[in-house]
């Protein structure tokens, strides 16, 4: 399977990539790791006229501690995230989810920026990014702007990223809840995409839940924060019964995906099971 013909441009910097995007207009697509885009091009589901390759830009491949937050370059690969001690300490949910994306070869090439720009409803990161209360940094010809994770995912395959903008950085707050976070996944056994991906960040004080954020991937048309679970546990003493009561709220009132393998009812039940496991693990 060979893609349709296209024009290939290798960007020399982020600003070069932005001017190439303007120059080539609507038919241009940004190529990062290429592990979502190239397969869709091979199937001819996607036929961009121009690819602008940012995959080799070292200025986008970094993980650094900025004090209040971790700054992760959009070009950081899943393997970089999976193997980073800094992320393991400050945001374990992110390294756990990175280590469960695809397989080793995919994790060597695929990037966090690519996943978030592509916004596949079945991707692992979106629920994690919401639970970690991340900020997404994008650049366009007018300069840089930041988007809260909560405002970023706008629908199925849709994000707040504009056509001529490039996602450049993900910022993860270094708060107590993120340091005590996890990601548990019920994967499709062949594709490894999550039927349910549950990310929880929770800080505790004196045996009670001080702050909690819960994000789900794979469950709905887009990743979501689950305020039902959060509100049920916030400020409560952590016990088997309070965790059971909170996790029973998972995906309540949400539209839930259904497919030939996993019905809506089963997926909703598994969202509750995975929420309970994640909350128990962090308590």
């Amino acid at each position, binding site marked *: 399977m060979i893609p349709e013909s296209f024009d290939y441009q290798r960007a020399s910097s982020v600003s070069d990539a932005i001017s190439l995007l303007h120059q080539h207009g609507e038919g241009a697509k940004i190529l990062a790791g*290429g592990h979502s885009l190239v397969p869709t091009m091979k199937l001819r589901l996607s036929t961009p006229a121009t690819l602008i390759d940012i995959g080799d830009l070292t200025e986008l491949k970094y993980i650094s501690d900025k004090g209040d937050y971790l700054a992760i370059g959009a070009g950081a690969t899943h393997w970089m995230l999976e193997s980073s001690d800094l992320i393991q300490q400050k945001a374990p949910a992110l390294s756990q989810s990175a280590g469960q994306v695809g397989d080793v*070869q995919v994790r060597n090439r695929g990037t966090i920026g690519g996943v978030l720009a592509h916004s596949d409803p079945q991707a692992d990161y979106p629920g994690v990014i919401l639970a970690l209360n991340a900020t997404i940094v994008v650049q366009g010809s007018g300069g840089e702007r930041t988007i809260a994770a909560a405002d970023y995912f706008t629908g199925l395959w849709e994000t707040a990223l504009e056509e001529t903008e490039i996602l450049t950085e993900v910022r993860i707050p270094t708060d107590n809840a993120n340091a005590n976070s996890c990601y548990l996944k019920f994967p499709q056994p062949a594709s490894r995409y999550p039927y349910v991906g549950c990310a929880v960040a929770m800080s505790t004080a004196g045996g009670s839940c001080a702050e909690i954020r819960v994000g789900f991937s794979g469950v709905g048309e887009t990743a979501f924060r689950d305020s039902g679970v959060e509100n049920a546990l916030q400020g409560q003493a952590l016990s088997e019964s309070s965790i059971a009561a909170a996790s029973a709220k998972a995906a309540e009132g949400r539209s839930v995906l259904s497919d030939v393998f996993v019905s809506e009812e089963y997926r909703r039940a598994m969202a509750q099971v995975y929420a309970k496991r994640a909350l128990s693990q962090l308590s």
Partner: protein
Amino acid sequence: MKVSMTVNGTAFEHDVEPRTLLVQHLRENMGLTGTHVGCDTSSCGACTILVNGETVKSCTLLAVQCDGADIKTIEGMATNGDLHPIQESFREKHGLQCGFCTPGMILSSWQLLERNPKPSEGEIRHALEGNFCRCTGYDNIVKAVQHASQQSA
């Protein structure tokens, strides 16, 4: 467009269409047919090679993305006719039946042992998740990787 890369220590330069896949470039332009095409959808791992020391599925990369890259394929694993210890271990432990998946298995095993020289059985199975053996010879493949790991004590 012009694409140059070093493959198994030899520098190559070719004029390729941007849509040329890396695996196609290796097989058709360089004659390196040890890299196989199985599923062609980045699932099976038969096309696994090393690009700048990391395993990738060469059916899901464009040759133009690898301009300037250092590439190793199965043909580059042996030295002067002596099999690489991982290849030797696959032979010793019968880690192949039909052999179709073997080049990819060898390179994925190389990546694992480079990052984790003493993996557990579970870690070996997890690291080889991106490589399918349709003969289902997984038990002996795992034994081969364990054998290779012990050889490099």
